[in-house]
């Protein structure tokens, strides 16, 4: 594999990153995030009880993101009244409520100058805990640059 690093251009950079990642299992690092916006629970998805996992394939060149594509989005759609049962088509349509904000967030990230990498970033959105009557900030856990976990409490506004 290392022999191929003699190639030039973008392909070279990609292959170097793959090589780095492979060695990372023996203790080598991922590129470091130096700035980015705080990921929050996408508001419509949270209100409409859409949860799930979005995997984004990220290409980084010289510390900047040159490409961010959704690799997969596995979402669950829940009816709070427990009557409707949703099918794959509904889940596919709902998945954009999580995947588009995830891509928008990851694109705000900047990496250490000179970083070159290709990696998968996984956003995990969960709704757990007691129902609140007004929205509270979610718990956001970052394991940069590979995992983002956003856990929100369900909320239900009341009118008398």
């Amino acid at each position, binding site marked *: 594999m290392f022999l191929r690093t003699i190639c030039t251009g973008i392909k070279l950079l990609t292959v170097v990153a793959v090589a780095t990642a492979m060695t990372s299992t023996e203790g080598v690092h991922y590129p470091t995030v130096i700035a980015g916006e705080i990921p929050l629970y*996408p*508001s*419509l998805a*949270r*209100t*409409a*009880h*859409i949860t799930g996992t979005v995997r984004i394939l990220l290409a980084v060149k010289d510390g900047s993101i040159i490409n961010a594509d959704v690799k997969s989005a596995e979402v669950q*759609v*829940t*009816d*709070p*009244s*427990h*009557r*409707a*049962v*949703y*099918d794959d*088509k*509904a889940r596919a*349509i*709902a998945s*954009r*409520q999580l995947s*588009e904000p995830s891509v928008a967030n990851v694109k705000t990230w900047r990496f250490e100058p000179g970083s070159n990498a290709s990696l998968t970033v996984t956003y995990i959105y969960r709704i757990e805990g007691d129902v609140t009557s*007004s*929205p509270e900030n979610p718990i956001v856990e970052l394991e940069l640059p590979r995992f983002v976990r956003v856990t929100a409490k369900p*909320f*239900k*506004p*009341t*009118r*008398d």
Partner: protein
Amino acid sequence: MNLSSGGNGKNWAGGAPCWAAYNAAITAAETYNGRLQPSTMQATGSVLTYSGYCPGLGQTGNLLDLTFNLNYGSGDNGDLIGVTNNRDTTRSQNFGYDVLNRIAEAQTTSTYSVSPSHCWGESYQFDNYTTGGPWGNLTAITPMTGNYTGCTQESGISVIATAQNQISNATTYGYDTAGNMTANGSNTYTYDAENHLASTAGVTYIYDGDGKRVEKAQSGTVTKIYWYGTDGNVLDETDGTGSTGNSAFSEYVYLNSQGQRIARRDSSNNAYYYGSDHLGTSRVLAEVPSGSTTATLCYDADFYPFGGERVYTNSCTQTYKFTGKERDPESGLDNFAARYDSSSTGRFMSPDPLGGQLLDPQTLNKYSYARNDPGDLTDPTGLYTCKDDHNKCQTKEDIAFEKARQQALKSKDPKEQRAAKSYGNPTKDNGVTVQFGNPGTGRGGATTSDLRVDPNDSSKFQAVETVTIRSGDSGESLVADVTHEGSHVADAQEFAATIDSTGAADQSKNLTTYQTELNAYLLNQSVLTAGNEKRSYGDCGKDPCILGAGVSAAQALENINRLLALPESKGGYNVTPNDQGPLLYPSLTIPK
């Protein structure tokens, strides 16, 4: 056909029918025990008159004469254990139940040696043929042996149930991904996107926007049109031409708001009167030819517990049978509005669009019919189960709520209509749930708002509203509370409808607390004014915040503003025109 000509009716104090005289030809009477369970149901082919206190028929009913034994006085669980047919006691029936109050056996009191032609006996098994089980799947209907050997009964079933509570045996039964049965060995079935049965046995069905079946068609030609009244009952049936002058024409008459069908008229003005049992099942029909006052029995049948028909006389064909639902001759299925029931397998073809109750686990099986207690319970809409007969199949609160909603629907005020309409059709899931209880101190109701992906269009969103109306609320106050909460529901629905698949929404429709409460309280003012009543809201001190009769529009607005500005401890909302409080959907602030 005029029901009041030469006759009239009386009700018991509890609202149950006591006696009624039809067309100078028939008297029907019912009596109830101290638990308000039916004890006798009778009909006779002549008009009898009674004093006002309703003693019931009290003599032999020559059309219908049933005595019900609900174990009153010796058993507490209210299961029907016997029905005596006083016209022909060889057709009397007894019932047995398992520990979960599911029917376990049913048989005539007459054995084979007493009445070979009238006797029948069946055993029912759930989930497993030999060991039984708790999941509520009727898996076997088997003939009784011993004293009943030689009797004739239904063909019975022997099936196994899958983990999805669907039934299978070899290759006979099939289901689609939405859980609708698509094949049962005798027919195949197709369903539309709203899970209505679309076609079977060469007949296609057409539904209106509320899910009511409006037409039947064969090979592209409409063969039957159903004409509904405002309360959702079929008033007329015609062929595809709409003619009232041929044999396809039928006109129906109902006794009460729950839709107890009591008579049919054909195009020659012959009348047919229904004699129904405690479940609303049509047991006898009496024909009164045009111009005559003499009734003749022309249909007489018994029914097996899950709805199978056992006909004794059938010279006037009719299609409204088990619990008064229409049985389609082409498929044998019963149309229960939200879904179809198969009496031969004793279960629904499609899963219950509503959920069951955790406190009654037998209701969690989405296919079972009336929690497998078909002699005691009915399922009038295919959506929920209710106790006893057609006269008591809704709680007092349900009935009062619906009456209040209907009153608001008829209002001339479009805002009041909008509030009443927001609750939707009771047989269709539009995301709104109505319950009764304590909505909080000083409040007549409360509404919580939620949101879901629209089950009928995944690219849209739908408000999920739970409305709690105060238990015991009545009169104009109930109408005011129903419209007040309906206004909140309508506000939420209108905003939810503006959310598109990108998540953008019309924020001008995402109302503040002040805006939605102002809308709602203006309805309290108009409803109470129309009903000539007034009511004080909140703790406004020496000058109470009164709405209703005698309060001018300007004064009402001022009183509402004073009420809304009060702290919650005084029954207010802590909001003013300048500080309007949170949005209806506070987290959705993406502008469109």
